[in-house]
Each structure stands twice: as C-alpha cells, then as structure tokens.
C-alpha cells in the first residue's frame, strides 16, 4: 500500500507535469512567431515529462517494493536530445524563412565578423 | 458515444483518407495513401481481437489465462507481421518511385501520364 505522503507527492507531480505540458501547448498556440513558440514546448513539456517521471519512479517503487530507476534513462534521453532538436529547428526555420521570404528576424552576424569599430 | 464506435470511426477515417490518396495520380501520394491504408488495416486486425484496456498479454503468475484477464495476443502477433511486411513493401515502392522518376522524368503513376 502506498503511504499517504507518497500518494500526495505522486498526485502533485502528476498534476504539475500535466500543467507544464498544458502551458507548453498553450504557448505553442498563443505565441506569435516561430522563434517565440519554440521556447514554450521545448522546456515546459520537458519539465512536464520530468514531473511525470518522478511520479512514476515513486509509484512503481512503492508498487513493486523495489527501486524503480529506469525512468531516469528517459530523463537522460530527453535532456540529451531536446537541445539538439531545438537547435536544429531554429537552423531549419531560419533557412526556410530566408528561402521563402517569411518574417522571422534574421540573426545578426557574429561579432568577430563585424566591421571593426 | 461508446469506445467501440469511436475506434471504428477512427479506422474508417483512416481508410477513407488512405483510399482517397491511393487514387491520386502521383506515386508518392499513392505511397502516402498506402501508408494510411496500412494503418487502417493494422488497426482493423488489432480490433478484431476486441478492445482491452490495461491488460497487455504479458503472462503474470496468479492471473487466470483467459481473454478477460489479457488482451488477445493473436491479432497483435498478426499485426506485427503485417506491419513488417507493409514496411518492406513501402520501401520497395519508394525505390520504384525514385527509379520511375529518374526514368520518366515525372512521377505520374502511368508511363505517359503527364502527356494526357
């Protein structure tokens, strides 16, 4: 039987995770250009996943009376990959925007290439 | 609305989408259509074993080995086979699409489709 504190903790994490996911999704819908939108899900959702994973760790640890840690693997994977996704998406969006005359703000050139002064 | 009707509608929509795309004139679109049809067919096979929620057919000690405790494993095995086969055949068709485009200069499904 799951102790009450764990029950509450799990419940909290579950709701928190879902809220994060929802906020990320709202951002995805509400924000008005791609670069802004990108911020919302890449992390809100990631955090949401983290919360649910914590809930899962606790839940299965108590359910099976053994430590459940494989959820950490997913966390590892998410943290490993999410930055790359975002990074590649920005590159793609900028290139696509350039190609199709869309309205994303182009990034400035790197400072070392700026004319001196 | 019952769950049964919902999933039946889902399979139907997938079928309709697949069929519509299947009837397009470009091979790539036809491949897309076949993908949708294959989704529909896989779900169709799957649902022939009826709906079971939270009862994965992983045998556990002390649980009676009946279809009320576990989902029907057989359609699942059939779907696996079907998925793999349609995966392989999609690859073949895509390669044909590429080759056909290289040979014909267009990707119409008929040899002189772009002429008519």
């Amino acid at each position, binding site marked *: 039987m799951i102790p009450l504190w764990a029950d509450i903790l799990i419940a909290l994490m579950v709701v928190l995770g879902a809220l994060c996911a929802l906020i990320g999704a709202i951002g995805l819908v509400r924000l008005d250009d791609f670069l802004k939108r990108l911020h919302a899900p890449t992390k809100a959702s990631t955090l949401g996943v983290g919360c649910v994973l914590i809930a899962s760790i606790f839940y299965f640890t108590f359910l099976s009376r053994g430590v459940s840690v494989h959820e950490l693997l997913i966390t590892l994977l998410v943290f490993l990959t999410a930055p790359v996704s975002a990074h590649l998406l920005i590159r793609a969006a900028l290139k696509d925007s350039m190609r199709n005359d869309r309205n994303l703000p182009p990034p400035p050139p790197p400072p070392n290439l700026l004319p001196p002064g | 609305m019952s769950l049964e*009707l919902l999933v*039946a509608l889902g399979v139907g929509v997938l*079928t309709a989408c697949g069929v*519509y795309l299947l009837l397009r004139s470009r091979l790539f679109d036809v491949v897309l259509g076949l993908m949708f049809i294959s989704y529909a067919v896989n779900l169709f096979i799957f*649902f022939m074993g009826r709906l079971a929620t939270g009862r*994965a057919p992983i045998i556990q000690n002390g649980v009676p080995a009946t279809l009320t405790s576990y989902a029907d494993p057989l359609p699942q095995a059939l779907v696996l086979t079907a998925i793999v086969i349609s995966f392989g055949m999609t690859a073949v068709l895509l390669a044909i699409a*590429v080759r056909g485009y290289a040979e014909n200069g267009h990707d119409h499904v008929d040899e002189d489709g772009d002429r008519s």
Partner: protein
Amino acid sequence: MNASLLLWMLLLPFAGAVLLLLVDNNHRRRSAWIAGLITIAGCVLLAVLAAAVFDGGMVRFRVDWLPSLGVAFGLRLDGLAFLFALLILGIGALVVLYGAYYLADDDPPARFYAFLMLFMGSMLGVVLADNLIVLVVFWELTGLSSFLLIGFWRHREDARQGARMALTVTGFGGLALLAGVLLIGRVVGSFDLDAVFAARAQLQNSPLFMPILLLVLLGAFTKSAQFPFHFWLPSAMAAPTPVSAYLHSATMVKAGVFLLARLYPALGDNDAWFWIVSTAGLATLLFGAVVAIFQHDLKGLLAYSTISHLGLITLLFGLDTPLAVVAGVFHIINHAVFKASLFMAAGIIEHETGSRDMRQLNGLWQTMPITATLAMVACAAMAGVPLANGFLSKEMFFGEALAVDTHRLLTFATPIAATLAGIAGVAYSLRFIHDVFFNGEPVGLTKIPREPPRFMRVPVEILVVVCLAVGIFPAVTIAPLLAVAAQAALNLPGVEKLPVYSLAIWHGFNFSLLMSLIALAGGVLLYIALQKKINLHTITRLPGDAKLLFDVFIDNLVVVAGWITRITQTGSLQRYLLLILIAAIVAGVAGVWLAPSPAGSTAATTAPANMIAVAMALIGMAASIGAVVMYRQRLTALILLGATGLVVAMTFVYFSAPDLALTQLLVEVVTIIMMMLCLKFLPAQSAPQKNSFRHWRDAVVAVIAGLGVTWVVYQVLTRPFNSISPYFLRTAVGEGGGANAVNVIIVDFRGLDTLGEIAVLGMAGLIVAALLRNMPMQNTKLGAPDDAKVPGNAHRSLLLQIVAALLLPLAVMISIYFYLRGHNLPGGGFIAGLVFAIVWILQYVAIGRFNVESRVNADYATWIGWGLLVAGLTGVGSFVAGFPFLTSTFKYFTLPVIGAVPIASAMFFDLGVYLCVIGATMLVLSRLARVNDPAGQRQPERTP
C-alpha cells in the same frame, strides 16, 4: 499381332516426320526416300492387315489413355477405315514421288515431307480412330498439319492467308465437333464407337440429339467445304500442288465425308439428318459446279470442282438410303483418284510452264501431248463420261436422286439439280481440256512448255490407269473393297447383306443413263454457249466472294477485340484501383446482403469513450484528414502522417499492445526517413490535379469505403468472441518458455509466419539495392541543385554529431536489451533491430554517408543473408532432436554466482530476425541515401 501392326501403321508417319526434321534440309532425295519408304511400309502393313478385313473381321488396338473419361486410345480397321487408309497411303505414296520432282531447289524438302508425314499420320488417325475423342484429336491434328502444309510457301501472302483461313474454319468445325462428341458422350456414357452405334435409339431420342447433330455436321461440313463454309478451300490452293493433290482429293476434305460415313449408323436415318445433310450437299453440289466454270486458275477450277463433288457425296449420305451410302462411298474412291491425278497434272503444267492461268495457258497439246492425254482421261472421269470411274458412281447418284420419293419437293428437285450439276460438271471439265490444251497459242508464258521428267508423270499415269480400270472392270477391281467399306459405313454386322447394287457399266437404257446423256450434251452446249456469248477470259471477278467476307469478318473481329481490350486495359492505374475498390465494396456489401439475416441484434459490451480517447481520436482523424487536404505539400503531409502514426501507436498503448506500439513507432519513423530520402529526389510538391470531378468521385468512394470499414469494425467489436487465443495464454510460459504471449506467438507458435516475414523484409532490401543501381540521373531535380544544397561543412551541426555519437552506444545497449528480453516482456528481434538501425542511420544524418561507410563494413546484404541463415538453421536444428521444424526448446543452465540462465532456441531464431532487420533496413536507407551518388564515390568531408 495384328493390333500392334495397326499401331505401327499409325505411328510410322509420325516417326517419319521426326526423322525428317532431323535430316538436313539440303538433301531432297534423301527426304523423299525416307518419306516414300515410310509410306510404302505403311502400305505393306495395310496389305498384311487386309486379309482380316476382307474376311469380314476388324482389326483393333486398344490401350488405356484417359481412363476416368472412358477414353481408350482405340484404333479400328474396318472396311471403311481400310478404304480410307488405302487412299491415304496409296495416293500418299504417289504424292511423295510426285513431290520429289515438283519441289524447287530452294524449297526445304525435309520440312515439306515432315509436314506431309505429319498430315498423313493425322489423317490415318482420323480414319482408324475407334473412339470419338481420339478421332477429334487426330481431326484437330489434320487441321494443324494442313496449316503447315498450306503455308509451306511462307513468303507468299496468299499462302499465309490461305493457311490461316483453313485453320480457322476447320478449327471452328473441329471445336464444334468436339462439343458434339462430348454431348454424345454425355448421352451415351461412352465415346467408343461400338457403344455409340449401339446407343443409336437412345441418341436419336435424346433431347440433345438436335444440338449433337448440328455440332457434328458443323464439323463435317467445314472440313468438307460444304456451302457456306467452302471458301477456305480455294484459298488453300496457294499450297504447293502436291499438297493440293493430297489434301483436296483423297484426304483432308474427305475427312468430313468420312465423318458422315462413320457416324451415319448412329446419327443417320432420320428426318433431321435427311433435310440438313441433303440440303447442304445439294447446294454445295450446284454452287461448286457453277462457280468452277468461271475460274481462270487451273487449281481454282479443280478446287470448286472438289467442292461440288464433296457436295455430291454429302448429298448421297443425306439421301439417307443404304444404296445412296454405297454410292457415296464409291464416289469417295473415284473422286479421290481422278482429282488427285488432275491436281498433279495441273501441277505438271504449272511446273513446266510457270503458270496456272487458263488465260495464258493455251494449246499445250502441242508441247505436252502425254500430259494432255492423261489429263483428258481424268477430266472425263470428272465429267462422268462412260468407261471412266466417275461415270459409275455418277450413274448410281443419278439413280438415287431419282429414287427420292419420301419428300414431295425433293422428288422433283433432286434429279433436276443433279442433272444441272452434271451439266456444269461437264462444262468445267471441258473448259479444263479445251482452254488449256487447245484454244490457240500460249500467252506470255515465262517458260517454254515441255513434257515433265519421266517419273513426275508416273503417279498421274498410275491414277489414270486406276480410273480406267475401275471404270471398265468395276466388278474385278473395286467391288470387294466397296463392299467391305460400305458394309462398315452402314455398320452392318457380317451376316446382314448389303443392299443390292450393280457395278456394271451398262444397266440398260434407264432414267439415270438419260440424265447422264443430258448432262454430257448439256455440258458441251453450255461450254460452247458460254465461250461464244461471254468470253470466259474476260470475267474478272465473281460476285459474293465468301473469302472476302471472311477477311472482312476477321478484320472486324480483330477491331472489336482491340476495342474490348482497350476497355479493360486503359493503362490507367487510377482506374484499375478504382475498379478494385468498387469491386471490394460490392463484394463486402453483397456478402452482408446475401446473408440470411443481415445486421441483426448485437450483444453490445460497450464502454463509454473518455476524454483522452476522444482527444487522441480527434488528433488522429484531424491529422489524417489534414494530410489528405494538404497532400500536395509533401513534407507537410509527411509530418501529418507522423502525427497519425503516433496516434496509432498510442492506440496500441491504450488497448494493451505494447509490442505493437513499439513496432509502430519504429516503423513509422524509419518509413518517414525513407520518404524524406526520396523527397530529396522527387518533387517537393505534387502536381495539381485539375479534374474536379475526379476529386469528388474519389472522395465519394473513399467515404463509402470508410463507412463500410467503420460498420464492419463496429459490428465485430459489439459481438461476443470465442477464439483459440486462450491456448496461447495458457501455454506461453509453460510450453513456449516466455511470458510475452505476443512474442511467443511470433517466434514459436507462428514462427513460420515470422520466417516468411523476414524473408519479405530481406527481399525488400535487396530489391531496393538492385533498383537504385545504374540509375539514369538526367531527368531528376538533382541535375540542377537548388540553393538549399550548399556544399561545404558549415551545415554540419556539432551538437548533433556529439549527441548522435553518444546516443549510438546507448541505443545499441537498448537494442540488445530489447532483443534479450523480448520473450518475456515487450521487445524482440524486430524491435531491437530497428532501434539499432535507427541510431545507425542517425550517424549517417550526423556525419554523412561517406564518413559512416568508410568506418564500418557496410555490406548490409550479408547481414540479411546471415539473418535468414540463422533463423532457418534454428528451425532446422530441431530436426536433430527428431522434432518438427521450428520446435522450440529452452533450458536453464545454472552458473555459479549468476544463477539460472535461460537459453531458448527461440532466441537464436530471434537473432536471425534481428540481423535480417538490421541488414534490410540499413540496406534500404543507405541505398536511398546514395541515390544522388550511385557509384558511392563522393569524397570524404572534414568534420569541423
């Protein structure tokens, strides 16, 4: 003894044909000798067997052929068969001799004689057959071999056409005959002639009698060129003359009347037979005789004459009296003899003058007196002049024509028509003589006419002698033969007597003699009148040429056939698919509709849909409909496809199918990667389809299909279920050695499915690899790179490289994890293999194809080979223990510290799956990746 001789007699010509085909074509003499010896050997055999036949007996051979059909390969040599065999072999021998001189240097003699032997054998088969099916077999063979013979001068258009026409018409008749024979078989229960004869009453009382009669007569009439099926015969004159002499006197065309004679005992002697056969005969008799007069081609004249005489014989069989049958048989013999000699004479004339046109041929009496004499005697026989054999049978015919008294109309019509035909017959015979041998000087001949080589004339001489011998001394020469033949034709048992007939030349002055005289005198007058009134040479074309009608018919048939073909073969894949779809919808609806009680009550066990299920369903439907709406933007469609696939995977999750969810996710991503690899090559946008009717039509079909599937799924889901599946759940752990029932089914219960499945996957890899080799690249968009493809390394993402390199060992670990535990928990070789392949292809994406393939052995086809081998050998391994293929076994090995380690044969099988999946997937992906670089020669790029 006799029986096997009979078989040999039949087989000899076929053996000869084979022998001849092996002979070099350049040796005319050798070919002729082989053919001649074969034919003479046949004659000898026939002579040996003659005794038995003339004793009133019958020689038979019988061996089982199609037992359950009641078809024995039966031969019989009765009187009728003997007569025909004699004609076939005797005249055959003369034709062989004649042909040796007739053939030109550039005619391949071996082929000619081989075809001739083939035909001779087939003809013998027809007359010797003791079983109707066997008869039909040889009947069709005569058609085939005559096709070859008529078309022997294949460079000539008229020969080709004549051959085709003969084959078509007689083939048609042959099929009709087959149908008739099969119906006889149905009524009688046997195809044996004896049984058929015995079942005469049963046959004639059967409701099927009329169809049987019509079908059989169709066969006979087409073969014997009865009006209106006569037109193939004149066209067949394009054949070399020895062929004409053989086919159109003694053999091919006689097959039809032989059939009449053969089946007369079973089908004859009734009103239907009388009316149909005699009418056809009468019409043919008159028609052929009249048309013959107006021919300019010597062989054309003989051809129409043949038609006319065949009509005569047919009419005799149609008159339906025993005496008429005797007369018919008699005329068969006589016609064969004089017509063969006439054809040969015509051939000699052609051979020596280079022409057959009577408008050119004149006055040959001067240069070819011997030939002329022979031809004149034969013509006399044809015209029915006394002292020639033709006179005797014609007399008998006139007598029988007068004896028709059963039917009021024919009582008068028959003798009149017979006389008219006689007049015409005399006229064309006279024309043959007068127009060729007299009538002035030759016109425009290419050769100077002279007598033929000595031995070329011998066959004609022999035949003419026979004509005269029979004509003058019938009782001595022909009587016994005619007796046995007629007896057989009437199927009279030995004791029963033939009707009384006399073979004398002089019967006293009677009506038939009067008719003969009228015919002779009338014919002479007619010919003179025609030459005086309308110079026969000026007639260019006869009206109503049936040959032209036939051509038009065949041409139209081809046009109609082409039209039908184009309707079913539009060449449009979209139409084909639409057709299949409609057929499928119809099939489904029909099934439900035809069932005794469609759409009945269902024992619904429904659960309400909840929020998350509805949301998922909405997303899936929206994504798929979105893909349809935006399908022309291919990348967008792919993204939406990806979303749909995710929903499908989630459906599997929700409804307790983790293995399926895993597989679905993996397959979908790999598929999308494949499609993207193609998209670099194909247009990024689909060309618009402007036809809005099509869109609507397709949409309607799609909606109907969707509704149908929805209905079926709902029907099934809401009814109770009994399945074999509990067995798998019960035995998975105990006997299958795994807790994951799905995996146990895949590698054990239905391991054979999986074996086939990986074979398919492996082949897919091989096919893709094969197809993307040696591609023509000039048509593709890669020919003109767009601005998106900037060369250089700047595009490489450092981040991606590092993460991909890190993910690789991680995912390989996960892959092995999936592989090892698949038997007990979700996973297995397929899933493991795809995980492996995906991170591998990720390396391609991260560091480029060259960098990957230069670092590892990328011979993926070998992986497939190993996979199939390992899986197959695992299955075979159970043979060792004496168990069937793929029988699984598992053992726990107890190791120190580690404890019990399970080793299951299923794991080896799954290893095969694993290897095959990796090999196939990587092969597909890597080959699609190198499409723009088919040779794989791109230079390495430095990584930043």
